[in-house]
């Protein structure tokens, strides 16, 4: 047993840290925040492609680096820390994973090399509006290779070249996944501004758009769940990275801000607050590591690991982002200070992929299944 990242992965982390400290600065993030015409930072995205990050988990035969899900976790943590404003999660955690999981050899040949190079961007379109999203709630319909319906919100739908779309087909409750090219007149995309404007989203409407089946017909919901499970682990690493960044910011501020003649970090009210963030972050990190291991080995308890990692990381990041503002006092409430960038991202990440409540339910059902099968 060795529950640790490898030497190579430590090097990858250092490389990612340096690159992002240089290229995903607060100024870069703010440029995307404040410029409506700028959905993401293209230079940063190209740089990531040049480093081979976009194809990390894509096998070499499809133009990727052939590394493992663990390597992707290492990168994800640094992306979260730096608030990197790019479509990384949509293209890499979602579209790429869906193709790797369910694509035919031809589809992999067609899509993966361009995804690995960053020449094309993919996204995943599942949600359709208010209410619980599940197989029965999907109204977008696919018939004879053509798709009709509306998806909202779709992360990175404006910059994506294609989408992996969940649609109903045949009998009620039967869903399948489809690959849909988005640069077509039958696709309408309208920007939806989110709590975190550094990540772009749209409402996407299909009016008789050509759609190619991805995976077995009728398996749409189960593949989506499997993609979400894997994405949840990667997202958890982003959240852990973000929580750590908030903690670092708050500690730094608490050491340098004086009140009543002392650094505010010398008061127990602040010390204990920050210690609590540390505890929550380490707890989330331990769960995320469990997920990384499950991801790399395709462990049978991947769904349990994913749900635990997801819930713990959402709680940690939301706590860290909120208490970072509190530690900064009035300055934390200003547009000028960066606290709100993390507060926004923390909330968006915890609401994506079905939100915390769904993942808690999923954990409950996974634990029950595990318990009744007598495993430990």
């Amino acid at each position, binding site marked *: *047993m060795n529950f640790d990242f490898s030497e190579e992965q430590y090097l990858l982390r250092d490389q990612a840290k340096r690159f992002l400290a240089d290229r995903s600065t607060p100024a870069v993030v703010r440029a995307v925040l404040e410029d409506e015409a700028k959905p993401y930072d293209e230079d940063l995205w190209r740089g990531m492609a040049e480093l081979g990050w976009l194809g990390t988990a894509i096998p070499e035969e499809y133009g990727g680096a052939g590394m493992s899900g663990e390597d992707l976790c290492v990168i994800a943590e640094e992306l979260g820390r730096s608030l990197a404003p790019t479509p990384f999660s949509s293209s890499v955690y979602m579209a790429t994973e869906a193709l790797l999981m369910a694509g035919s050899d031809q589809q992999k040949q067609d899509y993966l090399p361009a995804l690995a190079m960053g020449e094309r961007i993919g996204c995943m379109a599942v949600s359709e509006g208010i209410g619980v999203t599940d197989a029965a709630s999907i109204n977008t319909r696919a018939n004879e290779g053509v798709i009709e319906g509306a998806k909202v919100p779709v992360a990175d739908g404006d910059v994506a070249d294609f989408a992996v779309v969940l649609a109903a087909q045949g009998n009620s409750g039967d869903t399948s996944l489809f690959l849909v090219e988005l640069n077509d007149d039958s696709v309408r995309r309208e920007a939806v501004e989110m709590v975190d404007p550094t990540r772009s989203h749209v409402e996407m409407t299909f009016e008789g758009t050509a759609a190619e089946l991805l995976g077995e017909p009728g398996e749409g919901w189960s593949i989506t769940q499997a993609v979400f499970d894997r994405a949840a682990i990667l997202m958890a690493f982003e959240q852990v990275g973000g929580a750590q960044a908030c903690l670092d910011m708050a500690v730094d501020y608490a*050491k340098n801000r004086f009140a009543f003649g002392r650094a505010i970090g010398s008061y127990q009210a602040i*010390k*204990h607050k920050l210690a609590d963030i540390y505890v929550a972050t380490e*707890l989330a990190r*331990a769960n995320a590591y469990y997920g990384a*291991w499950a991801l790399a080995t395709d462990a049978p308890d991947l769904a349990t690991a994913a749900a635990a990692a997801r819930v713990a990381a959402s709680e940690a990041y939301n706590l860290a982002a909120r208490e970072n503002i509190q530690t900064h006092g009035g300055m934390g409430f200003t547009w000028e200070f960066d606290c709100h960038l993390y507060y926004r991202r923390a909330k968006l990440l915890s609401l994506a992929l079905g939100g915390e409540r769904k993942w808690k339910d999923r*954990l409950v059902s996974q634990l029950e299944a595990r318990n009744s099968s007598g495993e430990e």
Partner: protein
Amino acid sequence: MDVNMSAEDTAFRDEVRAFLAENLTDEMREANHLNGGFFADYEISRRWFLALSQKGWVAPSWPAEYGGCAWTPMQKYIYSTEAAKAGTPHYFALGISMVGPVIMRYATEAQKAHYLPRILSGEDVWCQGYSEPGSGSDLASLQTRAVADGDDYVINGSKIWTSNAHRANHIFCLVRTKDTERRQEGISFLLFPMDCPGITVKPIINIVGEHGFNQVFFDDVRVPQSCRLGAENDGWTVAKYLLEFERGGSAHAATVAASLAQLRNVAAGDALEDPLFAQKIAGVAIKQLAAEFTEHRVIADITRQGRPGPASSFMKVMGSETNQAITELTVEALNYYAAPFQPEARKPGNNVKPIAPEVGVAAVAKYLFLRAASIYSGSNEIQRNIMAKQILGL
């Protein structure tokens, strides 16, 4: 990352399992099941200690030259995990975990030869004289005084929260030997027998109504200065050495997992059907998993850099709060049947029919007792101060 065990580790695990199967008696398992406090029934848990002692497995962290197991962190982890799963009774052995390592580091060869074998065999039972009525979290303010008189010290003062002082035959004690500006610099570390004239042990009954703690009074207790470990006034360093000795391989997560499994048994078919309650259990399960994988990380840190990383420091806070939450949820799951308090139904070998379901017979005692978890071995407030200072640099 790899969480699969090596062939050697698997062989070791099988050896542990075989030993447990052979030596852990029904009586011992029962004592564990009925344990509503920290240590299980004293006599029965001592029998388990003696079984381990005979096997040579009673001192996992001690080096082999002193009769210890010299287990790797992984082996310690495996042993503690298997022991928790099997339900071994928690025994009282501060000689092994606390004073033995200090003796190895600071005592003369003659003292080592005298004390260490008697600790391993269980012949000597040690209690700890640290806290005082006026010195809990602020331990360095302690006032029990040892005054040099010829070749002796004369000790006056009092120690409190002394677990099993009424059963121990020796005590290791922090005493003030000098008044200094930095209070840590005037403390010495002494070892002496409990039957010295002038020592009085007074029971303290805890929240559960049981006698585990004591207050110990010293009235002109005379001990030879040769019973001191380390230099005079350097006792704080000696005491701190202990904190460095235990390096990973503990398995709190396995203990938490056992309590969690019991909670699930209690809640099965009833409270678990309530989605809100199921979510509360899930919240605790996440912490149990985090504890488990933190333990793996600590072992990995030791393997890579020779010492545990900072992750180990939050285990006290998280572990104690998780255990408290489990006892609270167990009581919630049992509803009204958690309320009957029947200490007689928790005595091993009893014939009392519990009013609570059999699985929950110790639930209310644990609910009461677990308040101690966030207070003992450095209150959680002190732990947060330590994290803020040592990890966050505040």
